[in-house]
């Protein structure tokens, strides 16, 4: 089964003529992921590695009605509008690659998508994949590199870091463990799909037996996810790793008081570990320990 990306995924890339989009489009095509169309205003009629480019998303959909997924890789000032254009055209799943999008723009595009029943992953997401089904975005790099790191199997990985998603996949692959779906949820404070919002999909996914989370300091997303896991009795084993412990000991600087009032004491690597352990999540201390912990969890459920 896998989640979000599967054999039915048909993609439009918004901003396809940009430097990075061109590169990841090629890697997707080489991996066999159908990119049916691209959109760049003013460049309609051109093509990128044989993928036809249109001026608008609606035009692309009119020619390729099978499209059900968009990757947005346009400059930050244009990202909100590009996402809304895709939502408005009826696309129900959007992966936002662009980083440095203003926070209010992110909130507005998420709210707009929610009103129309569209799921967003990102912004600032390198992409995601379901091995042997397809990949979206730059995750794992060129197809031949991608194939070295990602193999099909029973483990879902959700990661706040793009680079460490591939490192984590590679670690599992070297240890003979494959993946159902691997997602870089994006590194920004406000994102379309948090850990907590993706876990229900993984609960329903029969292919996923164990979940691995790569966590980072900052925000309360791990803490809130841990509470959710406990309250909703999430049934699959979760193995989590929190990076950035040294940040806890850095001379941080609070600016104003609002952040402390809004977020309380959440955000530290130490606090995140404690909250997740309290919820029954297996938290490993070093990244390499993810592999044995996953093996042990798999032995318990398979």
């Amino acid at each position, binding site marked *: 089964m896998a989640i979000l990306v599967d054999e039915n995924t048909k993609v439009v890339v918004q901003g396809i003529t940009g430097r990075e989009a061109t590169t990841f489009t090629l890697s997707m095509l080489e991996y066999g992921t159908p990119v049916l169309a691209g959109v760049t205003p003013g460049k309609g009629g051109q093509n990128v590695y044989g993928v036809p480019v249109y001026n608008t998303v609606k035009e692309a959909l009119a020619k390729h009605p099978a499209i059900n997924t968009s990757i947005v890789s346009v400059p930050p000032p244009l990202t909100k509008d590009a996402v809304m254009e895709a939502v408005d055209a009826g696309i129900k799943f959007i992966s936002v690659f662009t980083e440095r999008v203003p926070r209010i723009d992110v909130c507005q595009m998420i709210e707009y998508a929610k009103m129309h029943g569209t799921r967003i992953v990102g912004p600032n997401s390198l992409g995601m994949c379901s091995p042997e089904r397809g990949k979206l975005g730059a995750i794992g790099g060129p197809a031949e590199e991608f194939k070295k790191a990602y193999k099909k199997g029973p483990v879902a990985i959700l990661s706040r870091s793009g680079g460490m998603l591939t490192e984590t996949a590679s670690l599992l692959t070297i240890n003979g463990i494959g993946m159902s779906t691997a997602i870089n949820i994006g590194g920004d404070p406000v994102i379309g799909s948090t850990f907590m919002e993706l876990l229900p999909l993984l609960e329903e996914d029969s292919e996923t037996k164990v979940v691995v989370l790569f966590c980072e300091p900052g925000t309360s997303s791990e803490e809130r996810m841990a509470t959710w896991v406990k309250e909703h009795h999430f049934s699959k084993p979760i193995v989590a790793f929190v990076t950035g412990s*040294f940040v806890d000991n850095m001379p941080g600087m609070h600016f104003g008081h609002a952040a402390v009032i809004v977020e309380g004491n959440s955000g530290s690597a130490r606090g995140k570990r404690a909250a997740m352990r309290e919820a029954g999540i297996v938290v490993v201390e070093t990244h390499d320990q993810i592999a044995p912990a996953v093996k042990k969890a798999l032995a318990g459920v398979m």
Partner: protein
Amino acid sequence: MRLKEFESKRILQSMGVSLPKGKLVSTPAEARQAAQEIGAPVVLKVQILATGRGKAGGVKFADTPEQAEQVAGQMIGMQIKGYVVEQLLVEEKLDIAQELYLAATFEEATKGRLMMASDAGGMDINEVAEKDPTRINRVHMDSWIDMHPFQAKELAYGLGLSGKVNSAAQSLFLKLWATFVSFDAILAEINPVVVTKDGRVVAADAHIEIEGDSMFRQKDRLAALGILDRDDNAKPPTEFEVEALKIDKADYRGVAGRVVEFPGSLGLMIGAGGGSLTLFDAILRNGGKPANYCEVGGNPPVSKVYRLCKLILQKPGVKGLAVMTNVFSNSRVDTLARGMIKAMLELGIDPATYPITFRSAGAFEEDAYAILRKYGVKYLGRDVNIEDAAKAAVSMMEGL
């Protein structure tokens, strides 16, 4: 971008918010003159980018212009929270009847914005938030719709304000919200809002943080108010960090920066983002003594990697180099190898004998490994995990 008090107040003033009479000064003589113009007694406040200056001795009062001059003489040049004080804001001393707390900010949990108000304004608002959260009223705003007047009204009555003060407060709430929205702030906080004994409602202190990612549409407006784009730092940057920042800024492609100086002897070129954090943790955990933190990723050009590597190798006390990254997605391994070798050759360092731990994998890894072999550098690939790579770097430094 975090703003100093006087900068935040310039913005608030441009939005019509009432402020205490005040003047920015940088010498004791100017402080005396300011006190004369404003009318003593006055308060003198250091202008630094840190919260909590009051408790650190950065706020003092003066009853006469002469005293203002003398106090300013003590304050200018003093060090508070790592910052050398260069400027003071001299303001009228307010006759305080009540202090309120007011802030507009984002909330990651609700993916939206909110306004917070409390009748417990002042330096201890965090304690209030912890012990009695109900004393802080929170109004969540729609991401698409601005604050409605009725929301300001509800907040004002919620704080127990009445009469003229209530109306002035409502107007202030709407103006603060408008400031937050129109300047793309991620924080606009007035603490305290002072209600004076003669019924004025003024912003006595303010913290505004403009979102760096919105600078493309705010730069000109801020410049018109004399506020120039700059970087935030938890402490004033060291010379080494300033040099590294220049390297990263000189070329927009990719990242070879975010350098933080540490006192150790192991120079680090690590990446990308999450990978840097994980590697740095692993090096510390295994007893390593890093000379710096940094992030290299997002497919930087060789020239950028080379310049950063050269800077790190030249740092006094650096005796070994670890070039380590996670398995790359969108950067090239050969870029790292080329940049590193170029820096070493230029500095007259023999790559074959200098202590190096190189661990990276991904696109163009074969090219990278070929270059390293050519120069006699041993390397580690994806089959050596991050923890073991960090251990190798730490043990390489033993006895050096």
